[in-house]
């Protein structure tokens, strides 16, 4: 009996065991799409989620799902979508992922209609598409401002429909897909370096569960709960990122964090809650305290010539995309977030430290309520602001991590054999900055590919890996550690609050070398204090214990963010260095790769990480040729462009 067993007040020591072909961790868009794919290929799949089925963070996506379906403007194509994505990511994206994403997104959206999704329609009955930041043409399939909810519900209902098929065929709803809800995975179990299973606990009862499976798909979303001002829910604690690292896989691009330009800033208790980019897509404009539409002053060099330079031109574009250039209110998110930050710093902010977002003067109240019903509701109920009459106050909020698990673009396979990843917890697709609308499409395209990758992997295996008793025992001890009594007991809630402040203030939207170093020193201290975390109560639905376990992941991932942010001595996308304010072409193709440091105890819950610069594969020539040389020159070194067909001419 371990010492932890002795103090554990309630909860079973029995370990429930299950055998599956594939275990998908996370039941958001990417996870559910992976489940559907693996099941359609005949495999038995478990889907494990920390919340209830259908509550995933995907519901928070508001604006839409980007796919070049050409329903609103026939000039669109996958090539244009690909180009916009690369531009948005400042050409650091994994170009193969961006290519697959742009090519396959339309099929993935149309497929949702066959599952029962009801998108808003065009006059001729097709799926309507709206404008969004960084997208050349109206491209986002949407349902008002609740697109994420529609997608999660649709995938949830598709899974139910597959379960109904299985019930008809095999007499059991759960013959091929079972949802394990309110269940957290604490460890991946390896056999000879390859995935053999996953170990976790039911949040409801605190009892342990072991999944024996040769393939695991990580679809755990982001890391925003390490930051104080965030649009993310409690689930976003970097679980997949941490599990992958500890299983020997690598993370890339962790320095790139997207601060969404428009989060609520008041009241304090809702600070950070998202205000959809759809407000600007539908004509809303940003203004400072002097009433000036300031975005015209912030068009960066690389985007000069692509955006409207006067209010008249911007408003003309809204009426007709083809006769004018787009409004700079819809520059990529990193640019808009920095602009807002600068306006507030210059003393032109609102009373609560944001800027104004005005839709009231741009649309009739009826139109606002119809097109942006959730926003109307959200401001009315939480801030007592009527957005059909008054301006909203908005400011940047931590929203999305571009960085994630390094995967093979075609299969979603991570470095660890049997481990796959999709969605926000994977890295590469969005480069240094994600375009709005590219997240929902990313989930669908790469969720499907990871499900397929896992299915192919499992089918090719000649024998199954085994889970050793020692590994299960170690995982059990580690999960119960927060119950062990310790001197100088730390409260997990206090430690979490301190971590959030540190990351927000020192590795936030604008970074400096000295501050990042300060953050790293703090993180070191937090790791030491973490060893003393003690939780009250028993194992049955105990949020203190849950947080104590999630803290490991947040600490590990925060170290990756801070270490990568310190190394990258330039500013690009979601990484802005006050002491290196310019984008540096020599950094463009360099990925900062995070791994656990060698020579550590493999049982360590929060291992040290190393960050190594590595060069990315150069873009395929036919894709490179889709860009004008004059544009590439803004991002690439001369040496890199020698291959371009226009170079010699």
């Amino acid at each position: 009996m371990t010492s932890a067993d002795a103090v554990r007040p309630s909860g079973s020591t029995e370990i429930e065991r299950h055998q599956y072909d594939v275990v998908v961790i996370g039941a958001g868009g990417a996870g559910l799409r992976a489940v559907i794919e693996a099941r359609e290929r005949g495999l038995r799949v478990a889907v494990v989620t920390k919340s209830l089925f259908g509550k995933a963070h995907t519901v928070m996506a508001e604006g839409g799902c980007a796919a070049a379906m050409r329903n609103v403007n026939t000039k669109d194509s996958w090539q244009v979508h690909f180009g916009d994505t690369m531009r948005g990511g400042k050409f650091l994206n994994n170009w193969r992922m961006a290519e697959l994403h742009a090519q396959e997104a339309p099929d993935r959206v149309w497929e949702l209609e066959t599952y029962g999704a009801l998108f808003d329609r065009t006059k001729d009955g097709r799926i309507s598409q709206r404008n969004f930041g960084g997208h050349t043409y109206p491209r986002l399939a949407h349902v008002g401002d609740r697109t994420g909810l529609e997608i999660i519900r649709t995938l949830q209902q598709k899974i139910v429909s597959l379960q109904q098929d299985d019930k008809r065929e095999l007499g059991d709803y759960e013959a091929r897909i079972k949802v394990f809800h309110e269940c957290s995975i604490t460890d991946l179990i390896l056999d000879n370096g390859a995935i053999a299973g996953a170990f976790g606990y039911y949040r409801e009862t605190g009892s342990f569960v072991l999944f024996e499976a040769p393939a695991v798909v990580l679809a755990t979303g982001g890391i925003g709960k390490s930051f104080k001002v965030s649009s993310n829910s409690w689930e976003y604690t970097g679980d997949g990122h941490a599990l992958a690292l500890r299983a020997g896989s690598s993370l890339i691009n962790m320095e790139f964090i997207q601060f969404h330009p428009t989060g609520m800033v008041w009241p304090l208790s809702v600070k950070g809650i998202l205000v959809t980019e759809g407000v600007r897509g539908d004509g809303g404009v940003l203004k400072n305290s002097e009433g000036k539409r300031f975005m015209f002053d912030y068009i960066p060099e690389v985007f000069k010539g692509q955006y409207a330079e006067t209010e008249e031109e911007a408003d003309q574009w809204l009426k007709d995309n083809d006769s004018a250039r787009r409004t700079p209110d819809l520059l990529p998110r990193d640019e808009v977030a920095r602009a807002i930050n600068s306006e507030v710093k210059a003393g032109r902010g609102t009373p609560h430290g944001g800027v104004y977002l005005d839709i009231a003067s741009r649309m009739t109240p009826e139109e606002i309520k119809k097109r942006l019903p959730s926003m109307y509701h959200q401001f009315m109920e939480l801030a007592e602001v009527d957005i059909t009459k008054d301006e909203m106050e908005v400011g940047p909020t931590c929203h999305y991590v571009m960085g994630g698990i390094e995967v093979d673009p075609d299969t979603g396979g991570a470095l660890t054999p049997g481990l796959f990843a999709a969605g926000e917890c994977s890295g590469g697709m969005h480069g240094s900055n994600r375009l709005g609308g590219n997240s929902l499409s990313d989930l669908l395209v790469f969720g499907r590919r990871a499900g397929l990758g896992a299915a192919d992997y499992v089918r090719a295996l000649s024998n199954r890996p085994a889970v050793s008793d020692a590994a299960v025992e170690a995982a059990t001890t580690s999960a119960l550690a927060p119950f062990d009594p310790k001197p100088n007991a730390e409260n997990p809630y206090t430690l979490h609050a301190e971590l959030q402040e540190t990351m927000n203030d020192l590795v936030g939207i604008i970074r400096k070398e000295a501050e990042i170093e300060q953050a790293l020193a703090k993180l070191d201290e937090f790791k030491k204090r973490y060893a003393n975390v003690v939780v009250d109560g028993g194992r049955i639905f105990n949020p203190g214990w849950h947080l104590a376990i999630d803290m490991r992941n947040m600490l590990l991932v925060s170290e990756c963010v801070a270490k990568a942010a310190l190394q990258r001595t330039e500013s690009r996308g979601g990484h802005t260095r006050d002491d290196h304010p310019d984008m540096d072409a020599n950094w463009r193709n360099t990925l900062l790769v995070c791994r656990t440091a060698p020579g550590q105890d493999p049982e360590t819950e929060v291992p040290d990480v190393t960050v190594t610069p590595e060069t990315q594969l150069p873009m395929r020539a036919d894709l490179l040729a889709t860009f004008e040389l004059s544009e590439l020159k803004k991002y690439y070194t001369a040496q890199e462009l020698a291959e371009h067909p226009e170079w010699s001419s």
Partner: protein
Amino acid sequence: MSTYDANLRVWRGDPDGGGLHDYTVEVNDGEVVLDIIHRLQATQAGDLAVRWNCKAGKCGSCSAEINGRPRLMCMTRMSSFEPDETVTITPLRTFPVMRDLVTDVSFNYEKARQIPSFTPPKDLQPGEYRMQQEDVERSQEFRKCIECFLCQNVCHVVRDHEENKQNFAGPRFHMRIAELDMHPLDVVDRKNMAQEEFGLGYCNITKCCTEVCPEHIKITDNALIPMKERVADRKYDPIVWLGNKLFRR
């Protein structure tokens, strides 16, 4: 910024029993009930069980009864109470308690699984779906549902009548049947099953479900009553009746 100490009364316990506990917790400007529960958790009751996710009224996880009214904790502002008023927070009554404010809502997932899924015409290919906005809007209203299950909780057919749970799907799932019945491309006839398998007849349109819906969906007027009318047309329409007599085997 003004701050005061609120009197909070929170139900704590498990399936074996429990009771109301009194707490005094700080409240700041603009805060909602969920903020206060979180502060209570962080400072006085680290193991207080509560379910929540988005804290923005979009996921429907933090349902509870606040002073006896079914509400989302994240959308209930503390300013809607007097500072000296005691705010009582109890778990949803219709579902079995697991611990403190967390209930077992699996009843809802079981009902969801019994409703036949969306069934498009067999030969309709992806990308070829054509529907008019005005035709999808009726079902779109019902798809705003965040599955907070407050309507299921408040519905008197099941709230104090465990025995009805077997035969009655509840407002959320009758709305789901209506949504599919009104889907322009669904080919399944759902009228008989609504009545016979899912117990639509139990509903006597008291509109309690509509009143508590945080998404302001007109569940009764737009889903339940039209479904009842569709069922009635089918059952009592003399032409349908005659047709059935003449042409059925």
